[in-house]
């Protein structure tokens, strides 16, 4: 059988293949990403020829979709690469479909986008990316890029003059409301998530195990995990990340936010706090992905602008599962930058 399950004892050729065709992350990264050595169901498969050549690979990050009444196994398939051989890619996809339950992917390569509809995959265009500039440096660069050549200098000066307008206000919390930094989410947080899951459903899992896997155990540093405290107890969380984008700007990501859903005031305070923290941390801009109408209103009020859709392709969604357009989606679900 040429299709093999990726495990901790997979030959070096597989990891070399991943480093060559996906990105040069090294074995530690792939061990983390596909939970090799952990007691977890298989999440990646590769095609190995009898002579040891690796022809293709497909990898998934498993999760669960919480609807109000049920929990459905699901997986994001995040790496799908084929070296050669008509049908190897489809064979691997079939293997993943059989192993996954609901299978999801993001926009994908042009080839992926051509192939998936033919296989009955559908697309949700509800999630969108939102951006808020936080420094004059970024605004000046944006303005210069959009202005006609002779006006670029003027555009830069005008953008720098807008600096006071970019300043984030320090959020004012009612007493007892705070964000508490943690290295990892404690297992006690699962009780909080269980309560929130009914409010955020349909949503992918956000329990301590899943968040720690994605953020705390990620081999590269950068995630900031915070518990939301209100009225003397933990009621939600905020996850953010600061790094440098390809253009050299400091990118601040609001990766995920969960709060008592009925409290629009707490949602507003969370997003305002995130912006304030990211600006103090040196971010040139804040960015997030969202799909929920209530969060959309909050970020609009916090001067974010929509920058486009994040198409999500899906397959094998059971009839009793809610429509993907209604899912609560954030960067936690679909950020491939670090994965």
């Amino acid at each position, binding site marked *: *059988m*040429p*299709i093999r399950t990726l495990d901790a004892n997979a030959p070096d050729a597989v990891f070399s293949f991943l480093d060559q065709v996906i990105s040069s992350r090294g074995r530690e990264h792939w061990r983390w990403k596909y939970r090799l050595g952990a007691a977890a169901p298989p999440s990646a498969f590769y095609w190995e020829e009898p002579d040891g050549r690796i022809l293709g690979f497909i990898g998934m990050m498993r999760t669960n979709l919480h609807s109000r009444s049920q929990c459905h196994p699901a997986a994001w398939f995040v790496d799908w690469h*084929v070296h050669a*051989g*008509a*049908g*190897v*890619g*489809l*064979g*691997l996809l*079939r*293997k993943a479909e*059989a192993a996954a339950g609901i299978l999801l992917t993001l926009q994908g390569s042009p*080839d992926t986008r*051509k*192939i998936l509809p*033919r*296989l009955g995959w559908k697309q949700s265009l509800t999630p969108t990316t939102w951006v808020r500039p936080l420094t004059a440096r970024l605004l000046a660069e944006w303005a210069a890029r959009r202005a006609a050549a002779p006006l670029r200098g003027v555009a830069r000066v005008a953008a720098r003059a807008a600096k006071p307008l970019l300043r984030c206000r320090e959020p004012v919390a009612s007493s007892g409301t705070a964000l508490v930094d943690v290295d990892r989410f404690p297992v006690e947080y699962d009780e909080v998530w269980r309560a929130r899951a009914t409010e955020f459903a349909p949503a992918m899992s956000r329990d301590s195990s899943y968040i720690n896997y994605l953020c705390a155990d990620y081999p590269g540093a950068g995630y900031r995990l915070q518990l939301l405290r209100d009225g003397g107890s933990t009621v939600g969380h905020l996850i953010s990340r600061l790094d440098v984008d390809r253009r050299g700007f400091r990118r601040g990501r609001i990766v995920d936010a969960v709060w008592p859903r009925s409290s629009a005031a707490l949602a507003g305070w969370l997003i305002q706090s995130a912006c304030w923290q990211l600006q103090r941390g040196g971010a040139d801009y804040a960015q997030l992905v969202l799909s929920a109408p209530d969060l959309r209103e909050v970020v609009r009020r916090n001067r974010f602008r929509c920058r486009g859709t994040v198409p999500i392709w899906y397959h094998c969604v059971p009839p009793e599962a809610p429509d993907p357009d209604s899912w609560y989606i954030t960067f936690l679900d679909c950020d491939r930058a670090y994965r």
Partner: protein
Amino acid sequence: MTTNNDQMRRQLVEVISRVFRVAPEVVERGVSPDRIEGWDSEKHVELVVALEERFNVMFEAEEVPELTSLEQMEAILSRHA
């Protein structure tokens, strides 16, 4: 008398002919990715989907890349019969 194998061969020729837009006579002489122009991974997906629809089967993951000649298609489809 038409046998099941003849019928399967005729249906296969028709599907392949339609997917790759080549004359049935060309298909009958034998097909492979080397012999049919434009048989890339995308066309292969189209072929697999068309075969599954026509024969009402779902190919196993390992079978998909094997569907590259009339003989192999017949052998695999026979296993699903």
